[in-house]
């Protein structure tokens, strides 16, 4: 029962955040980002063409996307972990 209650609270909070996000985007987002609504097909085609032009075929693009994400993740994690490990070791040596 507690689990269900927790899940319900999480979903309600997420719904509230999404509702606020939606309100903000409908007020500000489209105007500040320019042309507003475009068709799904045109956006997709443009992105597809852009990627093909710059980055080669689909499999390569997918791998390079995955590699970029993994590097970003590892870089940020390492930037937090390495200093804390060094500090801990120094404390232990003292």
């Amino acid at each position: 029962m507690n689990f269900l209650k927790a899940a319900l609270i999480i979903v309600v909070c997420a719904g509230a955040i999404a509702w606020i996000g939606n309100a903000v985007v409908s007020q500000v987002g489209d105007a500040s980002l320019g042309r507003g609504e475009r068709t799904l097909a045109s956006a997709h085609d443009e992105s597809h063409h852009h990627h093909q032009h710059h980055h080669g075929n689909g499999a390569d693009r997918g791998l390079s996307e995955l590699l970029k994400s993994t590097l970003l993740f590892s870089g940020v994690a390492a930037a937090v972990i390495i200093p804390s490990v060094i500090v801990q070791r120094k404390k232990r040596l003292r």
Partner: protein
Amino acid sequence: MHKARQKTLMNAVIDGGLLVVFLITTAPQFTGISWHEWISLALVVVAIVHIVLHWQWVVAVATHLFNKATWSSRFSFGLNLLLFIAFTLVTYSGIAISEEAMPFLGIGMFDNRAWRFLHHTFSNISLMIIAIHVALHWQWIVNLFRKRAIR
């Protein structure tokens, strides 16, 4: 198996799985857009399970946020709150720009440039917050592997 050890193992499997799958979903061209959307929807369910499993900690820190809680707990709570907001916005914007899953479920959404921009931005923000989140639990991860290696 001892109950506490079982719980730790279950947390490790869920958390490790969440991380790997989240990394995969950040590369939609790697899986193809259809798999990206269905995997992401499954990821949302597992993320809710992850929070529910740590609900006691959430309630404990939230109730003592302004008096008894330690600064590290407060920082962790704030970071997790930011992650929750970013992840929610990634999910909602993903649903908004869905090309396969939502149309398949018969849910008509709105696709526009703003939501696409937000989806990419909050995906990167979530990835960075998750990296810090994992880094803050580094000692727990190291201990987990040490215990496994000793046994």
